[in-house]
């Protein structure tokens, strides 16, 4: 329960102050949420997909720390122009690198961003009723982490008796 030192990179601060691709996307082809306000970490990820399954635009909304905001924002940039398959391959470590490194207690914020993005991709294919073979049936590490975080928040809330 003790506090953690948070040496944020200049890039994180920059994205925190001026987040790119912020906000709800009304014409999104798919969107997904990861985390929830009870864990203090929550990201909504929106995708607009064009010709050849290339990501035209992505945007996000976030509830969480500066690292949460920065990693979600950078990820919306990273997926732009990539095919969904290429976007799927982006790992949280690449995201962390892209923002100039994350303090270790903040790894999970980058993980959550990737989790939200992959869920949005799954959602895209679900809506079309076809799932390509390169999408694993089981949730990937990042998606699992998102699930675990959601579960943990539920468990803690139950134990302490706070409602979510």
């Amino acid at each position, binding site marked *: 329960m003790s506090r953690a030192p948070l040496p*944020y990179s200049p890039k994180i601060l920059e994205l925190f102050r001026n987040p790119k691709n912020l906000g709800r996307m009304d014409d999104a082809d798919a969107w997904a949420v990861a985390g929830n306000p009870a864990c203090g970490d929550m990201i909504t990820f929106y995708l607009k997909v064009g010709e050849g399954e290339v990501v035209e635009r992505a945007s996000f909304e976030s509830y969480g720390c500066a690292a949460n905001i920065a990693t979600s924002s950078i990820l919306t940039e990273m997926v732009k122009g990539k095919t969904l398959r290429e976007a799927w391959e982006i790992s949280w470590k690449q995201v962390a690198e892209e923002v100039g490194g994350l303090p270790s207690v903040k790894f999970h914020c980058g993980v959550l961003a990737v989790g939200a993005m992959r869920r949005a991709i799954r959602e895209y294919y679900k809506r079309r009723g076809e799932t390509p073979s390169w999408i694993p049936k089981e949730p990937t590490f990042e998606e699992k982490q998102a699930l675990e975080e959601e579960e943990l928040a539920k468990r803690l809330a139950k134990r302490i008796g706070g409602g979510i």
Partner: protein
Amino acid sequence: MGRVEELIKAHGELEREVYLDFENSSPVPSEIVEAMLPYFNRIAYGNPTLTHKPGWEAYEAIWKSAEKIAGFIGAREPEEINFTPGETEANNLALMGAALKNRRNGRKIIVSEIEPLSVLHVCRMLENYGFITVKVPVDGEGFVDLEELKRAVDREVVLASFMSVNNEIGTIEPIKEIVEIVKDRSPEAIFHTDASDAYGRIPFHVERLGVDLATISSYKILGPRGVGALYVRSGVPLEKILEGQFGTQKLWPGVENTPLIMGFYSASEKAFANFERNVEHMRRLRDKLINGILEGVDEAILNGPRDDKRAPDNVNVSFLKCEGESLTVELSLKGVYVSSGSACTRRILQPSHVLLAIGRRFEEAHGSILMKVTRYHTDEDIDYVLRAIRESVARLRTIYGSMGG
């Protein structure tokens, strides 16, 4: 380049800086620094246990400080004041020292759910040595549930620890009643109170309250960090928890830090010199800040009680749809320095235990910020802070957006 130099630079030229994070550290006012300076190299720089002039000077300085501080808390003897390196150490000494020395009297330690970690974690450690901790719940404003307390105390209770004023939400606990309930049911029990947030802000008198041990801290009254004290009523048996060369402080080994002790003494004197006026000033600014936030920002809630039941310096507010750590960063960029009870500021995914104990939901606890005002703050400071909070919460809420909803 250092690791966070860029972060510091990013703040640029600030219009004003208002430090409100007195919970976690404090700038030391120049008048108090001045009072410390001679003790670094002009006088009393010797070891107070040695037989030469600088040693005797140190002995005299420490004795006088203890005498004064004893007077401020209503202790009978200067010997009852034991200087330690701070609140954490004093709490560790109180709990471990009392439990270990008196284990024959029982195995039960009784505390509230909202004690500081330097109490709760020590209890957890003592459980490894056969002690049992019972945590008494608190109500929605942080007041100890006295009925639960009555049910929980029996002869097995060897030690009780209840803070006088909660450091996070400012609740002024009815310590006298709590002492009576505990001593009634377990006369041998030793009663400790962490009074770090009471000292210098509310009347606090160890004899009138009937406590055996009390922790006070220097930086919480604008003195330097690195020094605090444990009041130990004379005759209360306590085990030392550190070994080494003991000097004037019979419960804490090592060489006494005279300049810090003098800073603590000077800070105490300044806090008590105009006690009523200081407190009135803090209370007015506290209420200005609380009311300004509640009136100026939607979906904001006050944590802890109001008016006379609340410490005169404490402000703790939760904002929904606005995560607390982000808010501390955003406010910092505007020159307003506060802390948060959000899980994002902690090592594990759990927000402040105090806010959960008073029944705050997780999302309420994550959006909390803690501020303390001092006699040095001005109305202009508070106006500036209110504006900064309104702007910062508004911007962060645009990032929250609709959250897919």
